[in-house]
Each structure stands twice: as C-alpha cells, then as structure tokens.
C-alpha cells in the first residue's frame, strides 16, 4: 500500500481519534508539572513516577481484574513519590536536577525489576482496559462523533482539567499562593504563609497527575506491559510545559501537534505505507525538537524556578 491509504477521509478521522486517545499519556503529567513548576519546583522524575504508576496499575488491574482499582493504587504511588520529591527538594532543599534524575533512574529500574519478579513465569499477562464511553446522541454524529465522543472517561477528564487547572491557578487563593511561591517566595513568607507547605502541595498535585498519565498506559491504552513502557513521555511532558510558557491552556497546541504526528506515524506503520518503521518512530521526536525554535521564543519561566527557598 502507498501513502494515499493514510490520507483517505476514514483514515484521517481515525488519526484524529487516536490523537485524542493517546493525549492523556502526556496531558495529565504536563498539567501537573505546570502546577509544580509554577510553585518553583521542577520534577525531572516525572518519567520515573509514570513508570512506577504504569506498573502498579498493571499489577493491581491484573490481580483484581478491575482497571479502576489499578488506577487507584497508581494514584497512591503518585502521592508517595510526590511526598518523597517534596521532602528532598522542598524540605531538605536538595538540588532539583539531581533528585529528579535519581527518581527517574529509580523508577526506570524498579518498575522493571517488579515486573520481572512479580510476573516470573507468567506468559504474556494481559489486563482489561477502561471501556469506551459512547456519549448518547453525540457519538452518533458523523465524523465529530467518531473523533470526539467515543473515548474512555480519562480522555474527557483530561481535557476538562485544562480549564480546571487554569481556574485553580488564576482564580483561587491557593493558586495565587502557588504562583507567588514560584515568582517571589520571600513575599509569600512575609505575608505569613509557609513556602515549603505551598510548594509541597504543588509538587504533590504534579506527582499525582503524573501517575494518572503513567497509569493510563496500562488501564486505558495498552493491554500488556513492556519494559520502559512510557518511552520518554515524562520528558515530553516537561517539554510541553516549556513550549506552553507555563500556561495550562497554551500547552495544548504543542501537545496536540505532538500527539497528532505520533498517531499519524502509528497509523502509517499499521497501514504499511512503504516507509520503514524506524523513520516513522523518530518522526514525533524530531518534530518536537524542531518546534523548539518556534515555541521556545519569548517563553519566560517563573522567576524562582529551581531555586531552593531556605
């Protein structure tokens, strides 16, 4: 088959639908990281948290047969890793890069060890995934129904979180304190608030949202587990925060571009268009790097980003 098989109306509709379906793998983690970085703390361990969550969700989903239980346990992993990251970077004020990279290496190794030990001797284990919700009436609409209204619940929640996080950051008192802690922590302290407490809350939210992105791989997207299952999505979430200029709304544009290219190349691989798989595999990453000069112009990070507050 040639390239034209991917550019039929049906195939293009499918690509848009897949774009939305894979979006949560990056969306939750990016939104969480916006909150965390707005408070002044970078979490380079996102990838590690996501890997641990993906495995945890897979494991509990496998033994209980219920993907929601898996998701719930993954959220607990997010809480634990968030508390760990906050304790190390906010309370002990250790170097955020070192802590983040360490948590990544830890999650990378430990998730794989757990899989190999807990599933020793189990031939190709699989789990059930969250069902598609067919939204009544809307899902029957031509084209739009297929693209927008036939997804699992986490897709809808993810996109609803975009305005929710915006409202939280810009229209609530805690959101204001979080932004202030990332711009000028001294003022926050002078006003009688605890900067470490505010930053801990933000880091915790970031880690929990990252765990949803991780768990999405094994509760809604894939039925089996592989080593390094998140394949760099945690780092892509970090890139999205930067491209989106630390705004939960602006990051949607680069995020959808990335996921669109990714689903297009997945579609091309499935349709066997005559382009070798390795060229297609690298395409989304190259597009992302090429976007740097475009989206990277005029971005301005929070003033106190990565600066420990003692």
């Amino acid at each position, binding site marked *: 088959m040639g390239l034209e098989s991917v550019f039929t109306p049906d195939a293009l509709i499918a690509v848009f639908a897949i774009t939305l379906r894979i979006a949560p793998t990056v969306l939750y983690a990016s939104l969480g990281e916006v909150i965390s970085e707005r408070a002044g703390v970078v979490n380079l361990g996102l990838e590690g948290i996501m890997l641990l969550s993906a495995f945890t969700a897979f494991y509990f989903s496998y033994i209980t047969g219920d993907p929601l239980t898996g998701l719930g346990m993954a959220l607990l992993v997010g809480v634990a890793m968030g508390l760990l990251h906050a304790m190390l970077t906010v309370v002990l*004020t250790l170097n955020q890069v070192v802590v983040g990279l*360490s948590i990544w*290496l830890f999650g*990378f190794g430990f998730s794989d*060890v757990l899989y190999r030990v807990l599933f020793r001797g189990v031939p190709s284990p699989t789990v059930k995934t969250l069902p598609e919700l067919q939204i009544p009436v809307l899902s029957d609409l031509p084209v739009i129904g297929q693209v927008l209204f036939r997804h699992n619940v986490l897709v809808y929640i993810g996109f609803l979180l975009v305005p929710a996080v915006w409202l939280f950051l810009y229209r609530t008192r805690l959101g204001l304190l979080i932004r202030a802690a990332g711009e000028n922590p001294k003022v926050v302290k002078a006003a009688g608030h605890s900067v470490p407490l505010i930053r801990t809350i933000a880091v915790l939210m970031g880690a929990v949202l990252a765990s949803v992105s991780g768990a999405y791989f094994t509760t809604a997207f894939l039925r089996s587990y592989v080593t390094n299952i998140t394949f760099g999505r945690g780092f*892509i979430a970090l890139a999205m925060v930067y491209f989106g200029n630390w705004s939960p709304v602006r990051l949607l544009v680069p995020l959808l571009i990335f996921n669109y290219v990714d689903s297009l190349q997945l579609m091309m691989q499935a349709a066997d268009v005559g382009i070798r798989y*390795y060229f297609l595999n690298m395409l989304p990453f190259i597009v992302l790097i090429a976007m740097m000069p475009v989206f990277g112009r005029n971005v301005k990070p929070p003033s106190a980003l990565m600066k420990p507050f003692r």
Partner: protein
Amino acid sequence: MNATAAAIGLGLGFSLVLLTGADPFVAINTLLVYPVSDPYNAAEVLIWFTALLIIAQGIALGIRANLWNVGAEGQFLIGSIMTLWTYKQLANHLPAPLVVVAMIAAGIAGGAAWALVPGVIRARYGGNEIVVTLLLNLVAVSVLWWALDGPIRGRLSAGYPLSDVIAPDYRLPILLPGTRLNAGLFFALAVALIYYLLAERTHFGYSVKAVGSNPYAAVVAGIRVQRVIVLTMLIAGAAAGLAGALHVMGVLYRIDAGYAETGFGYLAIAVAMLGGAHPIGVVFSSAFFSFIMIGSQAMQRAIQVPFPIVYAVVGIMLISLTAVQRTYRRTV
C-alpha cells in the same frame, strides 16, 4: 563522604535485592567476589571502567557548567554507528592504521555532532538541554535500527539486522590474552588526564565553572557564555562518541539492535554525580560503578536478580549522596 553515601545507597539497594527473594549471603558473595574472582572477570570490570570513565568525564564537565547532558547514550550510539560506517567505507581501500585512525575520528565526530543540536538550542533559545538530549536518545535508537538495516548492514546478516564484523587488522590490540581487555583502557586514562588539565588548569576550565556558578557574573567577566555552553556540549558528545568507537573496535567488533541497551550513557550520569563532577573523583566513581555492574550481572545469572535493579540502587545512592552532602553544607 561520598563513600558514606555510596555505602548507604548500597545498603538500601541491597534490601531491594532481598525483596526479590534472593539468598543474602549468596548475593553478597556474588556481588563482591565475582568481579575479582578471575582475570577474565577483572578484565570485564576494566572494560566497563573504560567506557564509563570516558563518558562520565564529559558529563562531569557539563555539570560544572550547570549543563545536564542526559544524551550520552545517544551520542555513544551515533559514535559507534559512525565508526562502523567508516570501517565499511574504508576497510581494504586504505592502509589499516589509517583506517583505524579514521574510525576513531568518525566516532568522536558522530558523538559531537549529536551533542551539537542540544548545545545550540540551549545556547540560542534557552531550551532545556535535559529534555532535548533525552529526546535525541530516543531518536538515536531509531537511527541504530535504520543503520543496521542499511548503511552499516553486514554482508552476512541475512534476515537479522547485524553489522559487519571488524577484521582483526582494524581492532584495538588485546592487552591480556584470553580476556577482552584492550588498548581502549589507555585512551580512558589519557582522557582522564586531558580532562583534569582542561578543567583545572586552563582558562576554558575556569570559564566553564564561572558559567555554572553564575552566568550573569560570567558575562560581566567577559566570558562568552553561549560559546562555552556549545563547546562544553561538543566536548561531552565527542567523549561519548569516542567511548562508542572504542567499545566497538576493542570489545564487540560488531553490533546488533541489542546495542541500544548497554546503558553506559545513563549510568555515566550517576558516575559523574557520585564523582562530584571532579576529574579525579570521576576516576574513583567509575571504578566503583564498574565493579558493581559486573557484580550485578553475575547476580542476575547466579540468583535471578534482574539486572535493572542496578538503576534502582543507583537512584537511591544518588539521593543519599546529595542528602549527605547537604548535611555537610556542600553542593554537587
């Protein structure tokens, strides 16, 4: 002090090993005795030492400039590919010594080129080098698959993607017969010396430190920060590429798709951090890590402790290290 952290990390890491259900005495014995139990195993330790030392020195220089090159893995792969490609192009056309030099040079150039992109993006657009270098690692894996399917595909590879085997004339000489220990070790020691001189005894080394500690002050002091950033990345990439060239020419002689899983580039980040990003500290941490790696591989074979446990232990060790350093009021 770093030894304290290493000990804490190892202790915590070891409790992880026990979680997998391994016999603790066998595990300790395997981890600590196996790597020195015979010349072959000791040579394997030195092979890891060669690769880790060269790569980690480059990463350490970056850390001094507050540049985190997480992309050594990709730079290492591209360097190795370029070396094999050069071999395929030149072998039997030019005198062997000349080809060997060209192969090493190609490895260095490949690694440097792969590091140039994140260096320029960071210097010109302030784009985060951690994210860009990591993305380029993912791209490098695809490049490896492509190279094995085309540019460096071996004549005898049949259906399996495999490169040509480097002929004996073009390999690095073996130092100890019966082992894989080769002349790459001398390169590693030379690189360590060069890094020491570069980082501690030159104006460039001073500029790197200045950029790392306070870029604004560096600008005031007349240092061209962007140039230092790009050069530091280039040097780090060149080192990782050199390590790739040496590993192919001295140890493996041919590569397949599994070559993407050596993990040298990722572990070298930890080596650089544990070594305090200092040229001499990195020598010791490279030796320490090489020993642990060979011990861990043996543990996997002997008592089925999965090898990736190494990454988990390393993560714990690094956190212990920074925590210990904080209590002593020092920074990485």
